[in-house]
């Protein structure tokens, strides 16, 4: 299957990208790695008339420390994030989660900004960014602005970006040696998660918890976070993981099972983050 016809514009700076977006209007889409966009274009679920290719925008590819934060360029590919020594030492949750996205080929092309802008409720990295309380930096005709990630994902494939804006950077707190856990539940290793839970100890002493695929967008496990803040045990807090979620029922899992997984995975992620247990792995040996 192949995409419907479109025009293609290659840009080499963010300003050019913004200008191209302004020129081509709402039918234009940003193409970074293309691993969210091209698959749905091949199924003709998306039919943009113009693609603006930002993969050559070098100014958008970096992982660096800026004050208390790590700043990551939107065009940073998953495998670059996975291998980034800065990310590994400053915010190790992210490179780990990057290593769990799709398969190596996907990680070689997919970008952090792309996965955030795509706003898939089952996406790994947005879940981690949400747990971290990231800031999404977007740029458009009226310049740059920062959006707290909790206000960024509005609905199913719908973000807080205005027309003409693109994601240029993600900013996350430096968690350093703070504990973290990511529990991804799949049928096969490289599938999208049926449910995933990210938990991370943040510099302010709080614990961030977020869930994938428990509603129309990736979700903060707010009730869990609040319970932990009140000093509740991991077991008790995790029991609240499905509160405020609206999981779907599909062929992989019904809502009841997803809710169960949310509680179970949240508990496990929190325990890993607190150093109580090691991470779950698919493999362990018999006898």
């Amino acid at each position, binding site marked *: *299957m*192949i*995409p*419907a*016809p*479109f*025009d*293609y514009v*290659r840009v080499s700076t963010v300003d050019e990208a913004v200008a191209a977006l302004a020129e081509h209007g709402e039918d234009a889409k940003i*193409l970074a790695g*293309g*691993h969210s966009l*091209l*698959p749905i274009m*091949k*199924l003709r679920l998306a039919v943009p008339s113009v*693609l603006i*290719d930002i*993969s050559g925008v070098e100014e958008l590819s970096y992982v660096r420390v800026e004050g208390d934060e790590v700043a990551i360029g939107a065009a940073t590919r998953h*495998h670059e994030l996975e291998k980034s020594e800065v990310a590994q030492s400053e915010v190790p949750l992210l490179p780990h989660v990057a290593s769990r996205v*799709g*398969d*190596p*080929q*996907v990680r*070689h*092309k997919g970008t952090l900004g792309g996965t955030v802008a795509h706003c898939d409720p089952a996406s790994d990295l947005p879940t981690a960014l949400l747990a971290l309380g990231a800031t999404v930096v977007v740029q458009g005709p009226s310049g740059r602005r920062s959006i707290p990630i909790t206000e960024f994902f509005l609905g199913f494939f719908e973000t807080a970006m205005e027309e003409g804006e693109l994601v240029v950077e993600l900013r996350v707190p430096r968690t350093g040696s703070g504990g973290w856990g990511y529990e991804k539940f799949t049928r*096969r*290793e*490289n599938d999208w998660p049926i449910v995933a839970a990210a938990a991370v100890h943040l510099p302010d002493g709080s614990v961030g918890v977020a869930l994938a695929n428990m509603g129309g967008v990736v979700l903060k496990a707010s009730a869990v976070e609040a319970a932990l803040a009140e000093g509740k045990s991991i077991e008790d807090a995790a029991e609240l993981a499905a509160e405020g979620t609206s999981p779907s029922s599909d062929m992989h899992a019904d809502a009841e099972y997803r809710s169960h997984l949310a509680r179970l995975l949240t508990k496990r992620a929190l325990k890993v983050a607190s150093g109580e247990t090691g991470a779950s792995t698919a*493999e362990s040996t018999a006898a």
Partner: protein
Amino acid sequence: MQVSMTVNGQQRTDEVEPRTLLAHHLRDNLGLTATNIGCDSTSCGACTVIVDGLTVKSCTVLALQAEGAEVTTLEGLAGPDGELHPVQAAFRAEHGLQCGFCTSGMVMAAVGVLADNPNPTDREVREGLEGNLCRCTGYHNIVRAVLTAAESGPAAGRVPTSKQEVSA
């Protein structure tokens, strides 16, 4: 639109529709049919090729996205004298292919695995090949082939470059 890339050491410039997928460009425009297309959903990996040293699924990359890139397909893996790349040789020795349809992508993905990790475990090979589906082999002999190739040292993860081609 015009697109230029180096494919298996040869400079190629062609006119393509913007929507042309790299896989179709390689197959239909350049006649490199070892690269196969097995799905619509970036799942099976049969179309895996190496672009600028990294494996990608060429069914989910526009030909235009490979502008200026160095692309290696299965056809470009063996030495100029026809000597099999260590991964190709190991696939044969270990019977790592049956119908052959996944093989091109599987071999390229395996080279990528070994480039990233020259001494993988059985499990690491499996995880490295998680984006490549095979219906015939049950993966058993593919995994063995990758482990066997690893024994031949760093050459198993090497991707021929145009410079090598030129000097050869």
